[in-house]
């Protein structure tokens, strides 16, 4: 069989639209997920016992269930439980945010705890309150250690958006599937979809590599 370039060219605008939605969902989802994850991670590292335990349960629960089940739950079960209506795209964003927040929380906790206690003591001994030591000394150091695993999480979450096809979000994978249902060009379209993911993920990887070079681990 021959590779039909015209099928790819014809599908390209639509695939790009799917890719755009993929980036949008991953972007918003990750911004929210990282924000929540950083807070949870700080609670896990330094929080008082009851809050710490609550955060632990949240993290354990999210990490202990498949993302696809979380997506289904948020889109199909949550509306029934809470008597609300939720669109597929916001549901997808929430799923990515919730899921990544748990992993980010563990990453943040680990890097905060890996900073030598002596540095915290040096800051405290100067008369700084703990939160200022965190903001000016240990936080920035922990951030540097956060960069490689955080980059990794961004790559994972961007790929995870493909699972949103199960609730009909027209991201890149869903779009590819829809096109193939019309034109039956599986080889061409899946190849194109793979290449588009690869380009997006490489860009994300290069971005984080750049950040890492600018802020090396100390």
């Amino acid at each position, binding site marked *: 069989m021959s590779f039909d370039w015209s099928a790819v060219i014809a599908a390209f605008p639509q695939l790009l639209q799917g890719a755009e939605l993929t980036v949008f969902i991953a972007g918003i989802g990750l911004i929210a997920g990282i924000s929540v994850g950083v807070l949870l991670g700080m609670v896990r590292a330094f929080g008082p016992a009851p809050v710490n335990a609550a955060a632990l349960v949240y993290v354990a629960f999210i990490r202990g269930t498949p993302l696809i089940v979380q997506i289904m739950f948020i889109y199909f079960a949550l509306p029934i439980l809470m008597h609300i209506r939720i669109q597929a795209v916001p549901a997808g964003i929430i799923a990515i945010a919730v899921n990544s927040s748990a992993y980010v929380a563990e990453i943040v906790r680990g890097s905060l705890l890996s900073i030598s206690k002596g540095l915290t003591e*040096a800051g405290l001994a*100067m008369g700084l309150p703990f939160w200022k030591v965190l903001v000016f000394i240990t936080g920035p150091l922990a951030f540097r250690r956060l960069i490689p695993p955080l980059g990794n999480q961004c790559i994972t979450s961007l790929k995870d958006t493909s699972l949103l096809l199960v609730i009909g979000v027209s991201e890149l994978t869903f779009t590819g599937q829809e096109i193939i249902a019309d034109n039956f060009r599986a080889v061409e379209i899946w190849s194109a979809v793979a290449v588009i993911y690869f380009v997006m993920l490489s860009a994300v990887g290069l971005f984080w590599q750049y950040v890492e070079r600018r802020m090396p681990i100390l």
Partner: protein
Amino acid sequence: MSIVKFSNVEKSFGPHKIFNGINLEIMPREVVVVIGPSGSGKSTLLRCINALESIEGGDIRVDGFSVKGGRNDIRNIRLEAGMVFQQFNLFPQMTALENVMFGPMRVRKATRREARELALALLEKVGLSERANHYPAELSGGQQQRVAIARALAIRPKLMLFDEPTSALDPELRQEVLKVMQTLAEEGMTMVIVTHEIEFARKAGTRLLFMEGGKIVHDGKPNELLLSPPSERLRDFLQHVV
């Protein structure tokens, strides 16, 4: 009027009682050297002074502020007591100069310019003007420790606490740090120094404490205690250190 006063201090780590009623008064301009075997409570004694360790019983007052007096008192104590650690603990993301400027800017509310001037003067004092723009990782241990001393001095303390400041250093780097400390002592800085440097205790100390098992066993003039140890324990200890 004492600058540090321990009254019946009790301190435990979990079920282990470390101090059972410590009393100690330190006067301004005293250079108190603390010696004693490992685990005798030297570091703990020092860390209780600036409230890095909390105490359960009794009280410690530093220039009138109490370690049990809440956030404001503790902040004031820490502003008056500079601390130098065995492991230097310089902030690795900052140059030597930035390390020294940090305290004045963040806790003393100095302007960048004031902080810079002060920091440069202090680095000069510890003999590191040329290294001002180097990062800690680019400095030798002795240089790092001298920066750490400058950093502690930059918050303008009335009292300096040293916890084994030369123990992490190669022998040939110790003298440069001890020299800076000796100069400070001669300038009249009040100092509490945990160390194994007996020679330094004799030269720079005005007072020597020998601790064992969480108690201050001897408290006297360095020369007297070192030349004629009043107990078998101290004699033994001195033989092992020297």
